[in-house]
């Protein structure tokens, strides 16, 4: 129980060049010596054994270590690993100060929040008041928002410490983090591979234990895919569950802030922390937030077939051709594991599934072409000196945006133009309804649906540099017109 703090496993599973530097610095010395053994009275609550958040809370409250010690340990590892990983665009200067505040509170026996002392990485397209927030774009280089995103605000209110801002594909547009204007994040498991994207920095940071959990954003797989590439738990909540206020909009009708953790419990606790209606986001849901965290039970306390009767649908189209055999076998392995736990796993077909990606590209590009209009260099961000107004706009945006972003703005502008709107945007919205209906039907038959998060494991860095958008619009111009 609570052995996750020790990370011996982590060491053995890390690529050699990273783990060797870890070993030399012994960054976890404090933690391992503070490893709790017997006498913990948490057994009757039977919390899951692999939750770092819960074990940190236990250790802080029981005095095994202080928040400052914990923070120092994480910061040390962060400093050691960051030169190779590049998961962060900015590291907070206030981590130790905030940790000290938590220690003071604990000392005075004051109440501390459920995330007290938990180091949280925040994707750089999520606004933070005291740090730069660039969205991975040159056009916002040096920009510091005057407010915290609602998700960040809630994390802070519960005691979480923002450790820094993680790298991403510019404004979330990409799936490798190579479209960041600043750096490429490496996969902690193989530095020659990408961490995935767009929340690659957040995924890599949790995977390399540079922070405990992290916030990402998912518009079209940007949490799930990097989580899969980096072997961490990634969660894209239902649209509207988490407020989007402070999340730099990419495609407003699809954007969701999501969570990364090294365990399901951690992702659940983080989700619980940031969920709920927000009066600053008219699209945030007013539905009550269930306490995800308290519903987790340690596996050792479960009966042999705890999921008896749960109907699980495995989406056939996601394990078809084009999907790596390794991925397929992992999914099939997971499916049979679920069966052992009592689930009824059947394959389901979503006929409209193949239309999802083209519809996504049209809608996301259209909305992003509009959402990114505000980056004009007039009020904030980088402005280029120009002779007249058109040049001011053109040059600021030409220099500020990277190629992937420009491509999507162009495509989205095209899709919304008079004469093309019906063929692209409107049609894509209709397809969206079709997809929604087919998912609804599949979920009427099943309690949950499963699929791989990505068709393959992480790519080699440099492999996927051509914009996928070009390809899809080329495809669309054939099929839609």
């Amino acid at each position: 129980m609570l052995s996750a703090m020790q990370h011996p496993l982590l060491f053995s599973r890390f690529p050699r060049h990273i783990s060797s530097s870890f070993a030399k610095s012994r960054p976890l010395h404090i933690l391992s010596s503070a490893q709790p053994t017997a006498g913990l009275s948490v057994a009757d609550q039977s919390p899951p054994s692999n939750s770092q958040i819960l074990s940190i809370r236990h250790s802080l409250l029981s005095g095994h270590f202080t928040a400052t010690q914990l923070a120092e340990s994480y910061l040390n590892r962060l400093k050691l690993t960051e030169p190779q990983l590049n998961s962060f665009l900015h590291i907070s200067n206030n981590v130790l100060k905030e940790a000290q505040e938590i220690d003071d509170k604990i000392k005075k026996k004051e109440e501390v929040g459920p995330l007290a002392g938990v180091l949280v990485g925040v994707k750089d397209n999520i606004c933070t008041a005291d740090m730069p927030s660039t969205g991975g774009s040159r056009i916002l280089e040096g920009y510091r928002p005057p407010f915290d995103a609602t998700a960040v605000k809630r994390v802070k209110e519960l005691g979480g410490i923002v450790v820094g801002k993680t790298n991403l594909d510019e404004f979330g547009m990409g799936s490798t983090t190579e479209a960041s204007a600043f750096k490429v994040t490496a996969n902690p498991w193989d530095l020659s591979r990408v961490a995935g994207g767009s929340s690659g920095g957040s995924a890599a940071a949790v995977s390399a234990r540079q922070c405990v959990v992290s916030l990402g954003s998912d518009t079209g797989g940007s949490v799930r895919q990097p989580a899969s590439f980096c072997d961490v738990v990634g969660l894209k909540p239902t649209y509207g569950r988490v407020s989007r206020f402070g999340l730099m909009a990419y495609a407003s009708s699809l954007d969701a802030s999501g969570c990364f953790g090294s365990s399901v419990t951690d992702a659940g606790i983080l989700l619980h922390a940031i969920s709920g209606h927000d009066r600053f986001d008219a699209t945030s849901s007013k539905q009550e937030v269930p306490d995800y965290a308290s519903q987790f039970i340690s596996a050792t306390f479960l009966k042999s077939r705890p999921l008896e009767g749960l109907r699980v649908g495995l989406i056939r189209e996601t394990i078809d051709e084009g999907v790596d055999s390794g991925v397929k076998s992992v999914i099939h392995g997971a499916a049979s594991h679920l069966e052992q736990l009592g689930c009824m796993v059947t394959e389901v077909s979503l006929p409209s599934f193949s239309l999802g990606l083209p519809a996504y590209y049209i809608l996301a590009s259209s909305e992003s072409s509009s959402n990114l209009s505000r980056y004009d260099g007039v009020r904030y961000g980088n402005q280029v000196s120009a002779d007249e107004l058109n040049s001011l706009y053109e040059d600021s945006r030409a220099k500020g945006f990277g190629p992937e972003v420009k491509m999507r703005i162009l495509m989205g502008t095209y899709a919304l133009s008079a004469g093309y709107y019906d063929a692209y945007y409107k049609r894509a919205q209709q397809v969206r309804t079709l997809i929604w209906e087919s998912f609804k039907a599949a979920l009427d038959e099943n309690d949950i649906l499963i699929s791989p998060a990505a068709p393959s494991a992480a790519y080699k860095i440099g492999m996927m540099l051509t914009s996928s958008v070009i390809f899809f619009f080329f495809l669309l111009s054939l099929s839609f017109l």
Partner: protein
Amino acid sequence: MASTFFRTIQTHPFLLLHPTAVFRRKNGVLRCTMRSTQTQTPTQEKQQSPQIKFSPQNPNKTFYEIPKGYEAIIGIETHVQLSTLTKAFCGCPCNYGSQPNTSICPVCMGLPGALPVLNSKVIEFAVKLGLALNCKLSLNSKFDRKQYFYPDLPKGYQISQFDMPIATGGYIDLDLPVEFGGGHRRFGITRVHMEEDAGKLLHSENGDYSQEITSPTLQYVFCSFMLIFRGSMVDLNRAGVPLLEIVSEPDMRNGMEAAEYAAELQRLVRYLGVSNGNMQEGSLRCDVNVSIRPVEQEKFGTKVEIKNLNSFSAVNRAIDFEISRQVLLHSQGQGDQIVQETRLWEEGSQETFTMRKKEGLADYRYFPEPDLPEVILTKEYVNSIRNTLPELPEMKRRRYEKMDLSMQDVLYLANDINVADYFDATIARGADAKLVANWIMGDIAAYMKNEKLSINDVKLKPDELAKLIASIKSGTISGKIGKEILFELLAKGGTVKGLIDEKDLVQAIDPVEIGKMVDKVLSDNLKQLEQYRGGKTKLQGFFTGQVMKISKGKASPGLLNKILLEKLNAKN
């Protein structure tokens, strides 16, 4: 609109001739210099366009006659700035005339990650106006984004309504002023939709706004924000202020009708309390579309849009000027020179000038605003608002008409809801409608005009006005005394009874008492009496005055004259 406006700046010769329009970086803060293009444009165009001069025929009062054989078609788009306490999509107060950029927040500045949340008052006001304009309300409507780039538009799009406006297909009834021949008109309303206002570009003469940069009145000092440029400044106080755009059917036929349409709309929004409707402040802005055609022609002519109309008379005169300009071109066989364009009305020269030519339709790439849920109205909600609607100008006018008031009276009284309320309150206390109308339109109106007050500011309340009128009617005081104390009541307040008692103003109606006064005056002025009796009967006025003076104005004038004449002529 502004995307093309913006195009004008680019191609504008002014900017080519004057390299002062430069955006540059200074002290790490980026600044931009840009000269006022809006005011420069007309003068430029003036030099380029062929000089067709018209003198607007009697710009002030009389009704302009459209040349025989032609008909003008006029439609109006009106933007009404709503008097909500806060902006449409954020909590910033709507403050007219406050220091630049003191009423702004991340939402109306369009900062990354900020989201709009609809102010429910905007819906309420839109429903009110929709109902008052006899429109069909859409129980389901939505917001859309209208996209164009301009420095006063922080998000690069305006939140507006495109294909599902909140109200459609209504009409407005109005009575034309008596001096223009009177008559009743009904003009169609195409649609009413909700949207947000943009900010303002301020241009300084010396090109330096550095003073404002250090101004402590700036509520938000964001280290990387460049609200203030050198020479040209963006003021975002107005950005996000709610507007209703009202589009009329092309039902107006001359400038006067158009001006009356705008005036009725102003009356309506003021009656409803949804806007102050002030044209000078830009709370009510009219853009008019004018085209002409020969009467026998069915096809509409090419329409021209006119902007920069800051008063009803500007609406009137600009349209009449534009009609005469177009008719002249057409009648000279130069009809092809009437092109689809936006022209600006210039008050100084009383002419319209080309602001920009329309190069095809602007593509605003409208699409549904994904940050805002659909607007869904329930019938109960609409009915609850319908039940709170005040009596509207048209209903008021028809009611006053039945009181046997002249149309002039009716139009005056119903023009201002406060005056109408005052009138209604006074007659509710039993005063005669015609008398009340006379008092209000006469001395009270004159007083308000002199003192620059509104009827709510005068100290005389309807209750006392009713008592004043009753006191005169009953003969307690004379009409003359009534007038005198009226001004005292207007300025200082107090009660009619109190003033009468205090000043001992009760009319003298005792013939004996008046007779005594007359006798005294006659005996004090023997010389004049002699002259009178010698035939200089004009002196009667002199004697009347003397008696009034002695009676301190209280003598009943009728009685006084009767007794005076008797005595003057008695010994004759």
